[in-house]
């Protein structure tokens, strides 16, 4: 019971089937208050289904979920008044202006007129739509609609904010802007943000949950996830071709794997760079530069590689695929 009250979002065996298709399988997930969770998965992994379930737009086949400590199947109106939601492709009334739309959404939440006026102006300013606030939504670009979508999701100063791919249709400038807005909410609201853009998640999220074919693969703090799943690696670049050196390195016990970066060896050219992943980082760090010199190679570049979320993601999704194949 205490767990339910502490968590901003709690899913207990949440499942959703569409006929034979199992869109979400037994999701168990707990998200503490005021964190930003990146909900990652490829298209069709079950991200939108989860968000729709948590917003009571669809009903679970089995399992339960709690938002702000309340069960979603019993306290829908109370929950909805505490959350903000932005769908993947936000839709608006084309005949309304941006300001009118925010006023309408605010009135649904029962926000007082004087306060609403102030909040609408502030949000329009924050999402950079002040100049086009009185234009009809039919004339808004996709990016403008996405930003208005963010504004409407924030109108009630939500305790929990659900964002389904909030930046996927934005240009790089718009994306950076929206991510800044989301980041600025850190500590004020719990944010459940789905995305398949790993860089964005990496930039702003505290925790990451990865979902693959309806199943939660992992839920972990971002920093711990990197520690746990990423082996330290270096990039070595030499003047000479490295094919033979690669074969030699692969036989060393302190090296986990050696591979050529994707950019290397195109059109049958020789390969001059190597990505080396260590099994024993301390030993590798000490021995490798010496080995390069002893092999008669001219070292041009020796770079420590920072682990990225993309690496973790690919690794975990790949594992899932292999699991699926073997099953």
């Amino acid at each position: 019971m205490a767990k339910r009250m502490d968590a901003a979002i709690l899913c207990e065996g949440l499942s959703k089937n569409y006929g034979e298709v199992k869109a979400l399988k037994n999701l168990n997930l707990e998200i503490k208050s005021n964190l930003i969770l990146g909900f990652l998965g490829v298209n069709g992994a079950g991200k939108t289904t989860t968000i729709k379930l948590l917003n009571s737009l669809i009903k679970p086949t089995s399992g339960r979920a709690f938002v702000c400590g309340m069960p979603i199947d019993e306290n829908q109106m109370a929950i909805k008044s505490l959350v903000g939601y932005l769908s993947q492709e936000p839709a608006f009334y084309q005949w309304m202006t941006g300001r009118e739309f925010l006023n309408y959404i605010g009135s649904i939440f029962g926000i007082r007129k004087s306060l609403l006026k102030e909040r609408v102006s502030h949000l329009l300013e924050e999402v950079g739509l002040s100049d086009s606030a009185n234009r009809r939504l039919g004339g808004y670009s996709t990016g403008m609609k996405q930003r208005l979508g963010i504004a409407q999701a924030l109108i009630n100063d939500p305790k929990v904010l659900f964002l389904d791919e909030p930046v996927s249709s934005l240009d790089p400038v718009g994306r950076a802007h929206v991510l800044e807005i989301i980041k600025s909410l850190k500590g004020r609201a719990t944010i459940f943000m789905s995305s398949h853009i790993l860089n964005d998640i990496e930039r702003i999220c505290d925790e990451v949950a990865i979902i693959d074919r309806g199943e939660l693969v992992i839920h972990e703090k971002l920093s711990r996830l990197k520690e746990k799943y990423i082996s330290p690696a270096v990039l070595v670049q030499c003047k000479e071709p490295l094919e033979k050196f690669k074969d030699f390195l692969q036989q060393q016990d302190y090296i986990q794997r050696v591979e050529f970066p994707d950019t290397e060896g195109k059109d049958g050219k020789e390969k001059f760079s190597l990505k080396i992943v260590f099994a024993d980082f301390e030993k590798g760090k000490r021995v490798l530069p010496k080995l390069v010199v002893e092999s008669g190679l001219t070292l041009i570049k020796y770079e420590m590689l920072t682990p990225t979320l993309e690496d973790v993601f690919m690794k975990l999704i790949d594992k899932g695929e292999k699991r699926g194949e073997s099953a």
Partner: protein
Amino acid sequence: MFVAAFKKEWKESLRRHRILVVIGIFLILGIISPVGAKLLPKMLEMMATKTNTQGIQVSFTREPMAGDAIFQYNKNFSMLPILIVLLAMGLVAEEKTRGTAEMILSKPVSRFSFIFSKFACLALVILIGAASGGVVCLFYTSILLGGVDIGKYLFLNFLLFFYLVPFISITLFMSVVIKNIAGAAISGIGFYFFFMIVGVIPGINRFTPQGIYSYTAKMVLNSPSTEWIVPFISSLLITVVSFLLSIVIFEKQEI
């Protein structure tokens, strides 16, 4: 939250010119009915005289009266359910297709308020239209054809409004059940023809909205009786049942 949803519906009716269209159509009916009743006999006489080469005389045995205008006004109402269907067909289907329903229903708006605001607003729009048409028809009839029994006329208009209301509810129901707008329209019009066809069967007519229409047609020419009660209650029942079904089904739907 109903108030906020209703205000939005009202604003939409204004912006998308629904109110203008409805008032315009009712005003046209309100004007052409008395004007037609007054001028049509004269026009027919003139045309017959002009084109007649065989010496046939066309003459009307009596002068047109206020009752003729009201009868014509009532007759013109027979096609109005189609207008209602066209106005109501997209109320829910369009919002579901476009995704605005998803946006709004993620906020603290109950599905009942969502549907009821649409029903109430369209009923109000029709009421305003019918009232405008009724007033204009009364005005022109009084000027062109003499006095009208106001009490009887008001009652006639009251019944005619309730002849139209079930079609709002039925089309709204179809708009909830059927995913696309065209489907909702076709089935709404289907119900209109169904009531017309069923209305031909003796004894069944009074259990349909068509029964109200048949009564008002008789009422113009005769004294009012209690025959309106059964069709009126039937129309109310059809309205309430189809509205409640809309709510029940919409509550279960996944957006």
